[in-house]
């Protein structure tokens, strides 16, 4: 082989090897794999837009906000052993039987036992497909040492406990405790409990990493008593969240003196003694208590919209604090105006250290956990704003409107995601998810794609544990609910829709509504058609896809043929078209069950546009068009109101489709530049 041949061979081998390595690098860097596109489109120093005018809610102002019912109130004293990651506590629980039925038993949630062993429902859940990806490396559990009811005698009630879910006796998160004598309707029972809670290594918003502790779902917690006298109790599933009665919490936390604590409620007292600090917190009219403890927290305090905001964060995250406070400054007053005034005096924001990221992205009454890397927002994403606004809005759809999260997760996470989408859109417009490098992406665009990917898997209103994976739950409970609501808002009018949602939030403030309460309230405000769509889309698997089937044009010609007229039979011969008028025909189809009104634009070759409206009833709508020019385009839903539409790209038909020269030009230019990088 001569030198030329050797060079050619060498070049070919080197190029082949280079391409193989390049392909590997592409895969390592996340080049497209054949999965859902929407899952790769992750979801979010722009110019500030003025706040969108808050919807007027004249009807709503007349609805008096409810007061919390204070069914289960807790007084707790807890001591943190930071080295052992253990919390020892005493709990006095005051419980009122507000039902009309005597209660022979109580049900307690011992959520921490989800991390006790592999037999728990939680750890049997499909990990990696649940809310988080971490598995506990250190077990967590809660031991109840004593449970007495002084009014019923001195006997310890705990030894008589049985599994709360008899068909799943291995799970220890749901416990039934029989009472020696039934608790009469309207009667109050005071229980004294002692417990020791061992935290797991951080998993799904609870636990420790090094000396950071997020102490959530950490005490024996009474299941919610429904109005019919049954307890809403359930084993803790990895995809599920919580449910409890309102009450007052009075909690004293005894922690190492150097520890900074962020907790639910307001701190009323703090004292340091013998190397320990004792913080006393009170929270009235809430249904949970959680706290975080870490010696390395930095702290910023601000007053935002009349609320004392305390942000706890790791060093290096100052940029995130600015984004967080900015987000609260626009979201808090907006939510108060739309969904009822935020009733508490404090809000604590905990930004966990990066290695404890799983503790972030969670809501508790008056306490939210955010999260994200130190460079969040620096390159145009809205990650910090998104998580802050989302968890803040949970103060309404979870905190104040306390629906049964494990049974109907869409009522809290779905409504919250919709409110988040609207809040970010009102503040950041088209760049509500990303705005950088000349590209803007809105939350609605991304959510739409994500929601459409699994639209029909299971009904949105399914229980959390019924979803086949958390990806499906996320796509349906969070994003599809948000897109259903956003579609209704665009179709029936933003102001009316926000008024309806505000009515729901106010009517069921400090209450525990069901999906029917939601559907009924929205139906009252928006009408029966909207209610039907809501029920079909959320309680069923309703979907819709509008599409244009055919677009045909023909020049109009005078009528020809054999005509029986009063003067006798007349035969009119075929004549050439005049070319002055044209007839066009297009067929619009609606696939799916959801009947929604839709606009249709008819664009002729002269550039004139005529808009028609179809009420969406029936399976098809035929457009017969007569005009001076041929129809060049038919476009369904030109303003993109129907984000629920399964496929937006079949919403248009053209007599002569655009050849996409712009794409070809841009892609050619990019390829030329890329070749310039790789070649001499």
């Amino acid at each position, binding site marked *: 082989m001569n030198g030329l041949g050797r*060079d050619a061979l060498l070049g070919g081998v080197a190029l082949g090897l280079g391409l193989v390595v390049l392909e590997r690098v592409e895969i390592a860097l996340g080049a497209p794999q054949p999965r859902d596109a929407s899952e790769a489109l992750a979801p979010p120093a722009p110019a500030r837009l003025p706040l969108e005018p808050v919807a007027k809610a004249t009807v709503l102002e007349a609805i008096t906000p409810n007061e919390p019912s204070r069914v289960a109130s807790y007084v707790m004293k807890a001591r943190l052993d930071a080295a052992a990651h253990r919390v020892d506590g005493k709990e006095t629980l005051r419980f009122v039987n507000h039902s009309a039925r005597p209660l022979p038993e109580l049900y307690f949630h011992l959520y921490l036992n989800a991390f006790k062993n592999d037999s728990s429902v939680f750890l049997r859940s499909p990990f990696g497909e649940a809310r988080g990806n971490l598995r506990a490396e250190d077990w967590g559990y809660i031991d109840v040492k004593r449970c007495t009811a002084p009014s019923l005698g001195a006997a310890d009630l705990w030894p008589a406990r049985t599994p709360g879910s008899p068909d799943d006796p291995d799970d220890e998160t749901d416990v039934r405790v029989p009472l020696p004598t039934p608790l009469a309707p309207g009667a109050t029972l005071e229980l004294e409990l002692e417990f020791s809670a061992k935290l797991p290594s951080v998993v799904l918003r609870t636990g420790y990493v090094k000396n950071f502790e997020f102490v959530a779902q950490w005490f024996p917690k009474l299941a919610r008593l429904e109005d019919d006298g049954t307890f809403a109790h359930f084993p803790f599933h990895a995809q599920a969240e919580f449910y409890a009665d309102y009450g007052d919490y009075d909690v004293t936390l005894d922690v190492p003196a150097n520890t900074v604590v962020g907790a639910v409620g307001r701190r009323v007292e703090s004292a340091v003694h013998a190397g320990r600090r004792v913080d006393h917190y009170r929270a009235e009219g809430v249904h949970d208590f959680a706290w975080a403890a870490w010696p390395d927290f930095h702290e910023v305090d601000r007053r935002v919209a009349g609320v004392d905001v305390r942000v706890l964060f790791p060093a290096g995250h100052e940029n995130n604090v600015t984004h967080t406070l900015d987000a609260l400054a626009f979201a808090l007053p907006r939510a108060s105006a739309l969904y009822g005034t935020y009733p508490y005096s404090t809000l604590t924001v905990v930004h966990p250290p990066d290695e404890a990221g799983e503790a972030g992205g969670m809501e508790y009454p008056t306490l939210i956990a955010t999260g994200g890397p130190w460079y969040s927002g620096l390159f145009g994403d809205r990650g910090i704003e998104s998580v802050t606004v989302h968890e803040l809005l949970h103060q309404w759809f979870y905190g104040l409107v306390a629906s049964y999260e494990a049974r109907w997760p869409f009522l809290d996470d779905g409504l919250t995601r919709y409110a988040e989408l609207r809040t970010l859109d009102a503040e950041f417009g088209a760049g509500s998810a990303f705005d950088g490098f000349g590209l803007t992406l809105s939350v609605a665009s991304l959510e739409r794609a994500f929601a459409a990917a699994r639209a029909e898997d299971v009904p949105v209103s399914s229980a959390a544990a019924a979803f086949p994976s958390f990806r499906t739950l996320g796509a349906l409970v969070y994003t599809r609910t948000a897109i259903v609501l956003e579609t209704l808002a665009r179709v029936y009018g933003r102001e009316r829709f926000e008024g309806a949602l505000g009515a729901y939030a106010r009517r069921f403030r400090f209450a525990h509504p069901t999906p029917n309460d939601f559907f009924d309230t929205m139906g009252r405000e928006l009408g029966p058609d909207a209610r039907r769509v809501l029920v079909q889309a959320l309680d069923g698997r309703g979907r819709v896809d509008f599409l244009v089937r055919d677009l045909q044009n023909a020049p109009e010609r005078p009528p020809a043929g054999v005509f029986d007229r009063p003067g006798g039979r007349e035969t009119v011969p075929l004549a050439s078209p005049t070319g002055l008028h044209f007839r066009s025909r297009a067929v619009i189809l609606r696939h799916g069950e959801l009947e929604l009104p839709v606009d249709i634009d008819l664009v002729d070759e002269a550039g004139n546009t005529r808009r028609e409206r179809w009420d969406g009833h029936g399976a098809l709508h035929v457009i017969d068009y007569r005009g001076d020019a041929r129809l060049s385009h038919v476009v369904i839903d030109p303003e993109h109101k129907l984000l629920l539409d399964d496929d*937006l790209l079949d919403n248009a038909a053209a007599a002569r489709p655009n050849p*996409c020269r712009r794409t*070809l*030009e841009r892609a050619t230019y*990019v390829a030329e530049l890329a070749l310039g990088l790789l070649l001499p």
Partner: protein
Amino acid sequence: MKHVALSVLFDFGARAAAGLALAAPVTAVVVASGIGNFPGGDRLLFERGGLLLVEVVRASWSLLPPLALSSLVTGAFVYAALALPQALVWTALGEATPEPTPAFLGRACARVPAYFALASLGFLAQILVFSLGLTAAGMLHGRSSANPLRADLGALVVLGCAGVLALMLGVLRDVAGATVACGVAGSKNALRAGLRVALTRPLALAGRFLGPTALGLALVILVALATGSLDVGAPEGSRFVLVAVLHQLVALAVTVCRTVWLKSAIAVVRPQLAGGSAARR
């Protein structure tokens, strides 16, 4: 001079054709999505909010892996084919005195394998260095998770070093190419000679490389800023044509900048090779 100008134009044209070849399948996927049925056509892909951009990506997602694979294959052929215009440019730049065109073409064609080998070896080395840098950055990041800020910055520094090293390998490839233009035969000899020159006169080469490269980069960024939203809000028409022309002018300017650098590289290499030959004599 005539050979240089024609060669540069040919190189630019070949790269544009190669770009078109690589862009055509992507465009076909976009056309197949149905976006062309809207009155706004593919202009809608660039609209604020990205609703239809995301929709097209979602609709075309399953096509992306085969598209990426076929683009790699097309890219390999294009890469090999572009060795010819490179050889023409190098040969024209290396001409001490104008030659008759047939002789010039013959000499350039004879050098195609050497330039193909150099380009491919350079590509392989750059990809390997970048991959190693990526791996090292990942490992470093994993080890220093105690301080995320430090870990991120550390990984960025490692990646940056890998990038600089890849850039230096590109310079070495070009210097080796310059030695071929000055008469060194075969890629192996060229690499050896190029390395010797690069080690002897690193600063002179760096200075001559950075100027035109920075100018080309600045042009790309400036035009990107200027044309970012120039034609997006308007229907296809004069502004679209203006942007297309601007883009091709930038691509031509970048090719010219590269040519300036290659000419400078030859100017540095030639005396070194002559000196080396004289010393050996």
